[in-house]
């Protein structure tokens, strides 16, 4: 909508989802979990220690000329 009539009319906005990764203090391993279950998938220890997944960044622009 915002791009209509602008120089970026054919531009694409690409979202890259960063998986939610938490650290387990018991087995000292980082694992990917679902947001509704902050539990280590290996040993079942509840953990809220987020390693990644909160990022909201503009990472790069790809320009064509």
């Amino acid at each position: 909508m915002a791009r209509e009539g602008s120089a970026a009319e054919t531009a694409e906005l690409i979202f890259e989802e960063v998986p939610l990764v938490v650290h387990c203090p018991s087995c000292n391993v980082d694992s990917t979990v679902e947001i509704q279950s902050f539990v280590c998938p290996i040993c079942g220890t509840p953990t809220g220690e987020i390693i990644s997944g909160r990022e909201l960044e503009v990472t790069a622009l790809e320009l064509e000329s």
Partner: protein
Amino acid sequence: MNTQTRLVEVRTKILKHNDIVARQLRQQFAERGIFVVSLVSSPGTGKTMFLEQTLKQLQPEFRTAALVGDLATDNDARRLARVGAPVKQIVTGTVCHLEAQMVQDALAELPTHDLDFLFIENVGNLVCPASYDLGETLRVVLFSVTEGEDKPLKYPTIFNTADLAVITKMDLAAAVEFDLDAAQHSVQVVRPGMEILEVSAKTGAGMNDWIELLKERRRHIVPQAEILEINVI
């Protein structure tokens, strides 16, 4: 026609400005020994009533003030002003959350020099406030017994960014067949280890535990602030 593709790395955090202002606020609050509590919940959870009772109970002993965010009205600020503490309304217009910059601007109009506690009541919303750091010392997420025990599961991000959960309107728990164990379990699933308090601002039940928690947590930050003040003199 040949097209050339060029990749420009940006790597900029979208909320960078907010994070920078929040960091400045947090430092200012620490230097002045102000314990800052932000309150987040859905509309209608009873944040204002809870805050009103909190201010009343802290008033005799502590210097308190509040900032309240709302889309349109200043009803909450007028309600809170009756307690006698300095209150400043932040009218956000179409914005559904408070941002660190709004807090910084509002503080310029609020006497904060000698404060012990500052409360920031966010706009009633469980989604966007999760992403905005306000420089607070303690982020409290509230939900009432009428909202359902699975509220934390539906809005995991806000619960995950909070430091403490408060279940409000406990006086209505029996009437709505509220399952406290299920609610506590929901909180622990999305935020393992988070402390949970149950209160009724209306009857006063549970409010003592909350007030004691605030005093206790404040004691941990204040000694440092007093040492700083002595050094300045």
